[in-house]
Structure formats: structure tokens, C-alpha cells
């Protein structure tokens, strides 16, 4: 569409969405002794063997990679919960189930870096894929419901990656409706209808070319 703002200015890359997700907190069980880390992003630790503590995901993955901890799989990632979520997603076509804002990135990072800490990893992974698919299907139907009277879309429980993917479609749909709905356009339509009547509105210089 003409006059679009530059998408590269307003979009987040997949790597950037992942970067944001890496700040989400997860619980780890360290197997080393390490004093409190006074990081710019906050203080974490102290780390004592077998004492669970909360750290940002990037730190958890870094420690895990170095064999210094196990990561506690978040409760929402249990097969039981994911099965329930999937069922609920399927049962309620107009609603999105509550999942962490970064559920896609968190689960991927954990599957890639901490597979031995995730119970039923393969099952959990395929459930999350199914959930994603069901949710995407809902956006498609949701998009169809956008009309000229839509001025705002309210979405509960949409995730970061989903926002990023649906953004161009929703924004363009709304822009298109707003454009065709603008007073200027409506004015033209009325003008076309009223031109049969005796009362012709004066709408400026555009007329000049018609009246010879």
C-alpha cells in the first residue's frame, strides 16, 4: 500500500524478539558455589548447590551450557497443562488461552539448550507446535472480522511472536478501511449520488475539467 511507513523501522526481528524473551525469569538448581552476581540487569544469586533460585533465561542457559545447573521446566510447559491449553484453544474459537508473552521463544530456547531438563520434551514440543497452529488459524478468522467500523482491536493473551507476525496484516487492514472510510472518500460517494439531484455541491477545482 502506498504511503506505508517503513516496515523495517517498526518491526522486530526474530533475533530481537528472542533477545527480549531471554530476560524472562526461570528457576534453576545450581550445582556450584558462586557469590551474588551484581549485574546491570539486577542482582542474582548467591548460588549454592541444590538451592533453587530465579535468574533470567539468558543466564540460566549460559550456566546450563557450562554444566553448572539444571533448569526447572516452567509449570506451564508441562504436558498436562499444554494438553489442556490446546483443548481450550480448540474449544474457544474467539479466545486465546493465557500463555507467557514469550511462550514460543522460551520453549524453543529450553528445547535447544536444556532438553534433559524438560520432562516429555518431544511431547511438549509437538503440543506447543499444535497450539501455535490453532492460534494462527484464529488470527486468520479474526482478520476477516475487521470491518470499516473497527477502530481498535483488543487482544487478550497474544504472544510477542504472534504480535510480530500478525502486525503487518492487521495494520494494513485497518489502514485500508480507514482510508476508504475517510471523510474525503465518503464525500466523493455522496457527491456521486447527489449529482443527479438538482442541488450540486461545489467541490472545488476538480469540477473545472468536467464543465467545459
Amino acid at each position, binding site marked *: 500500500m502506498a504511503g506505508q511507513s517503513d516496515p523495517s523501522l517498526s518491526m522486530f*526481528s526474530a*533475533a*530481537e524478539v*528472542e*533477545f527480549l524473551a531471554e530476560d524472562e525469569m526461570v528457576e534453576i538448581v545450581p550445582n556450584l558455589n558462586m557469590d551474588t552476581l551484581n549485574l546491570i540487569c539486577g542482582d542474582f544469586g548467591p548460588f549454592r548447590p541444590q538451592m533453587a533460585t530465579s535468574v533470567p533465561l*539468558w543466564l540460566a*542457559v*549460559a550456566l546450563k*551450557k*557450562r554444566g553448572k545447573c539444571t533448569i526447572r521446566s516452567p509449570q506451564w510447559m508441562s504436558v498436562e497443562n499444554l494438553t489442556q491449553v490446546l483443548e481450550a484453544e480448540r474449544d474457544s474459537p474467539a479466545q486465546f488461552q493465557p500463555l507467557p508473552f514469550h511462550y514460543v521463544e522460551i520453549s524453543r530456547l529450553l528445547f*535447544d*539448550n*536444556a*532438553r*534433559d531438563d524438560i520432562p516429555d520434551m518431544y511431547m511438549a514440543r509437538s503440543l506447543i507446535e499444535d497450539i501455535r497452529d490453532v492460534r494462527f488459524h484464529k488470527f486468520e478468522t479474526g482478520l476477516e472480522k475487521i470491518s470499516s467500523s473497527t477502530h481498535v482491536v483488543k487482544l487478550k493473551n497474544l504472544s510477542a511472536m504472534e504480535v510480530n507476525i500478525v502486525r503487518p496484516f492487521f495494520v494494513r487492514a485497518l489502514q485500508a478501511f480507514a482510508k476508504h472510510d475517510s471523510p474525503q472518500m465518503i464525500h466523493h460517494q455522496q457527491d456521486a449520488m447527489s449529482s443527479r439531484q438538482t442541488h450540486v455541491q461545489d467541490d472545488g477545482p476538480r469540477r*473545472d*475539467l468536467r*464543465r467545459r
Partner: protein
Amino acid sequence: MYGRRASQLLKELSTCEPGQLTSFNTDVFDQVLKECNAHHLELQSLMRKIQEEELDVQTTKNAEHFGAVIHHLSLMRNKRCLMAYMYNRAQIIQSLRWKLGPVLPQEIQEKLNFSEEEYFKNYSAALESYASELELDLTVDMVPPKDPYIKVRVLDDIGDVLLSDQSPNLARHSIHFLKRTDAEQFISQGLMEELLG
């Protein structure tokens, strides 16, 4: 048809891979500029006619008037196309500064016209002066950072090597924790693989 050549310039922009430059189309560009001047001559002679007939330029709506309007609009359209061509190319030129640094490779430089070459240098200088005032290099950290270390498995005997922060013995099947930047060369040669999980 008026304005057709100018639209050719814009088509050229839109058919090009995003972020890539084609050679500056001097031929078409100059022809469009010529067209602009031709429109202007026509426009002036039509305006003169209106004046010679002692008609009011503001209110007269005769053939000369509409002819003049068409030339005026065509000229403006051509101007917009020329400006859009330059402006969009300038945006690509800016992005090249970020991607390639302050010196452009010969094959890209050849695609610029002289003014674009100058613009690239000026833009580069403006960026550098902003960065030096801030004492902050903005051309690094272009993508989100990752753990600088990765776990790798050696696939073939490499032996003792001197890396940026350690000097490991990279024996076949051994597992190491190396700097990503050090490991990349071996991975691309198929001598190592990154271990996930």
C-alpha cells in the same frame, strides 16, 4: 505518454532486490530532466498565448489553460519521480555505510553518480562525528548478542591450536567450550559441530 520515462526509474527501484543498488541510470535520468524543461517551454508558451489574448490567467478556462495544467502536472510528476529515485537510492547508500563501513568496494562505487559518492562521504562523516561526540561506536552490536562461548564436538583431528583465549588440543571426538568467533572457522570447514542440548 507524459511521465512514462520517469516511472521507468521507479520501476527500476522496485524490481531491484531490497537494499541493493543498480547502476545510476544517467540516460533515463537526463532524458526525464530534458522532458521537464520541454514541459516548461510548452507551459510558458501557452501562458503567453493566454496573456496575448488579454485573458485573465486566474479565471480563464480555455484549451490553453488545460494544456498548461497538463504540462505543469507532468512536470511536477517528473520532479517527484526524480526526487523519489534519488531519495530512495540515498537511503540504500545510508544503509551501505552501516553494512560496509566508510569505504565502499569498487564495484558498488561504480554504481553511484558523482553526487551520490559525495553524499556517501558526507553521510559517513556526519555519522562519525556523532559517534565521536558520544565516544561510542554505533556500527558494532548490530544484532542482539549471544553467549560468546559455544559447546563444540571436534569431528576430525585438528591438534594443538592457539585460540584467542586458550590453546586446547582439538582431538577427534573431544568436546570443548570455545569462543564462538574462534569456533566458526572450524565449523565452516566441517571440522567441528556445535552441540546443543
